[in-house]
């Protein structure tokens, strides 16, 4: 049985290779093979800090994570309580046209920063919105 199972594993593994390789080239959402590659709308922390521009940091994580620690001066704005927090964000007077907004979440694996950035730029019409590559982890490593 062990020999048959091993044979089957090899056959199935090879069969899966064919569509995986074809799809890897054809997919509209390809993977990045370089660790340092930036995705659309992302900025590196080093570039942000070197630019010298005034930055408005937006924390897209949960409120509890925000309360534990956050980038100094950051504003909490996540999708869990979007309506309340967006009202607070607009009422805070911290945002003005032209200021660069950088949204971050926990790490490079989380998607919350991308979702919040997309919502800010596309649905709320706020320009110059970016996502911090590596999220909060990148800031801690700074």
């Amino acid at each position, binding site marked *: 049985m062990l020999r048959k199972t091993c044979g089957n594993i090899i056959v199935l593994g090879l069969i*899966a290779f064919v569509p*995986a390789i074809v799809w*890897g080239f054809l997919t509209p*959402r390809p993977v*990045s093979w370089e660790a340092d590659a930036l995705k659309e709308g992302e900025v590196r922390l080093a570039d942000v800090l070197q630019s010298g521009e005034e930055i408005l940091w937006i924390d897209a994580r949960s409120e509890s994570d925000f309360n534990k620690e956050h980038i100094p001066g950051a504003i909490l704005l996540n999708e869990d309580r979007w309506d309340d927090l967006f009202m607070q964000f607009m009422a805070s007077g911290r945002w003005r046209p032209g200021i660069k907004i950088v949204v971050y979440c926990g790490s490079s694996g*989380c*998607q919350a920063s991308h979702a919040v950035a997309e919502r800010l730029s596309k649905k709320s019409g706020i320009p110059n919105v970016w996502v911090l590559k590596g999220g909060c982890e990148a800031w801690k490593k700074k």
Partner: protein
Amino acid sequence: LEKEMMRTESLASLRMESAFRGSLFAEKLNQPLQITELCFRLFIGVMFFAAGALKVGDPAKFQQVILNYHLVPHVVAAAMAVYLPWLEMICAVALVLRKCYSGALAILSGLMVIFFIGYLQAIARGIDLSCGCFGKLSEGAPPWMIISRDVVFLASMGLLWFLETKNNSTNRKDF
């Protein structure tokens, strides 16, 4: 000689009859097990096919999910993001159709164990993540739900292994 031939014939017919009754009886006994196996096979097959299909459309996102486990380097995560959804779907189809059955079951069980351990270590290390098992559908699912679901999958696979081992020992034909 004639008597001897008649005796041999009657003995042979008796043996055939008892063998026939025995096989019918065995078949009746096996039926509930076969139905159970079919149900679990369909359950696991459909779940893994759905899991693969939900991830295959967005390899970039699945790569981010894998990277968030902090277990493998970037290039390995990229290869896994492209390959694993297809492997899941192909093994799921093989499992349901009972083709390359033991291999499909071994691969899916292995993947399930790896996902489960990966998820547990991420929780233990305090990494906040979506398991990514069912693409967008698994986003926001609480850890207890993901762990319970994985335990159900693992138990179902354990049952399929048990039935497969039993089938091999009795040489039952595929259902």
